[in-house]
């Protein structure tokens, strides 16, 4: 290569100004490395151009300095990845060593500290839970008691109702049974308006009374039913009034009665009727 000719060919100036092809550029790179004269010529042309560039220098607006330096500071973190691969590798090796050494001696103490902290936390949590659950347990207990008492009252009510139902069914059965005779006893002339009904099965002798309308007796007195058999008054038992009067009451068995009558007697009943105290009476039909 004729170095002088190459230098004076104009390629150096065109290279410096950026006006050569890629191929010419590569050729120039080689020439610069091989020939110090070429390198010197390129450097000289470069410096002349830079002098020209320096002549074109302008002071940028004053505010730009602060803005740009701030921007660089912000970029400080982001700049790390741009560093060539060899440096991050070196950093990677250093960091574990620095980090690892202090970690080992501290470990056992730290474990106990963390352990104690964890245990205490668990204890507190446990206590809180205990209180919470005890309160809940108390609540449940009282709820259970109130539920049980209401259950008891329901059961009692159920017993009462079923007893009432049973009686009602019995009455219904009696009313349905064709064997029973129904004898309506009306008020005597002195006790007009009073009514009671006898339900009597002549075969089974079973006798019931329904005190539909009788005045409330004095506390020491009680109504007594009499069966009239062949002109004699035969005791058929005492019965209650008031609450009980609304349903059929079983009295003593009666045989061959022609009529029935109710008198007011002393409590417990009398062997013979007090006839002037007769309230209602009725004949057995047929």
């Amino acid at each position: 290569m004729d170095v002088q000719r190459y230098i004076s060919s104009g390629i150096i100036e065109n290279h410096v100004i950026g006006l050569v092809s890629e191929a010419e550029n590569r050729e120039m790179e080689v020439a610069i490395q091989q020939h110090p004269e070429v390198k010197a010529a390129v450097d000289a042309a470069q410096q002349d151009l830079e002098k020209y560039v320096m002549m074109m220098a302008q002071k940028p607006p004053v505010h730009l300095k602060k803005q740009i330096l701030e921007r660089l500071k912000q970029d400080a973190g982001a700049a790390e990845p741009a560093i060539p691969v060899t440096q991050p590798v070196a950093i990677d090796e250093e960091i574990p060593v620095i980090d690892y050494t202090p970690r080992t001696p501290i470990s056992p103490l730290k474990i106990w500290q963390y352990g104690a902290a964890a245990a205490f936390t668990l204890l507190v949590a446990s206590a809180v839970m205990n209180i919470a659950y005890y309160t809940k347990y108390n609540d449940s207990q009282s709820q259970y008691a109130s539920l049980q008492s209401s259950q008891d009252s329901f059961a009692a009510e159920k017993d009462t109702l079923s007893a009432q139902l049973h009686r009602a069914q019995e009455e219904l059965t009696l009313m349905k049974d064709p064997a029973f005779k129904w004898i309506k006893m009306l008020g005597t002339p002195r006790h007009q308006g009073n009514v009671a009904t006898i339900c009597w099965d002549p075969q089974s002798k079973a006798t019931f009374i329904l005190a539909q309308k009788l005045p409330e007796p004095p506390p020491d007195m009680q109504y007594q039913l009499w069966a009239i058999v062949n002109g004699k008054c035969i005791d058929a038992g005492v019965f209650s009034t008031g609450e009980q009067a609304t349903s059929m009451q079983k009295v003593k068995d009666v045989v061959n009665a022609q009529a029935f009558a109710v008198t007011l007697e002393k409590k417990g009943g009398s062997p013979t009727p007090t006839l002037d105290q007769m309230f209602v009476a009725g004949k057995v039909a047929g």
Partner: protein
Amino acid sequence: MGAALTYTEAELVTGLKARNEKFFGYLYDHYSPALYGIALKVVVDETLAGDVLQEIFLKIWRGIDRYDTDKGRLFTWMVNIARNTAIDTLRSKGHKLGQKVQEIGNNSLIVDQLAVYPSVDHLGLAKVVEQLNKEQRVIIDLAYYKGCTQDEISKILDIPLGTVKTRMRNAIIQLRNILKQM
């Protein structure tokens, strides 16, 4: 400018590679006029030139590890970054060839700049403007500041493609001669 330097280039490079903010402040103070001058000459618009200058310093900041002292001076490296960044911005803005010619060919632009901005070496520039003829200045500026190819220059200046390199060489030699006299 040389008198103001308190760091050698080696010291400056070491400080920059350590990403020392103080060194970047120093770098800005000493080199931002030259780099901004390039940006302004390429993109013309002052606001855009400011954005370009920021981009230039970001590239220097991020790329300083790739700067190799054996391959050339720091200033040459930075000037290349500035020129490439500015020309890339110009291309991304879709600048037309006609605009380039208008901007470069406008003689009064440089004269105006001389009047408005206190240039680092305005005496030198005045001498260059005086002694370098318009055609020589235009061919240098089109190639250097607008990144035009030989083909483009041939079309803009309406000269044969083969003549472009010769004229460019002559223009630069003329520039060197002017600079030698100073």
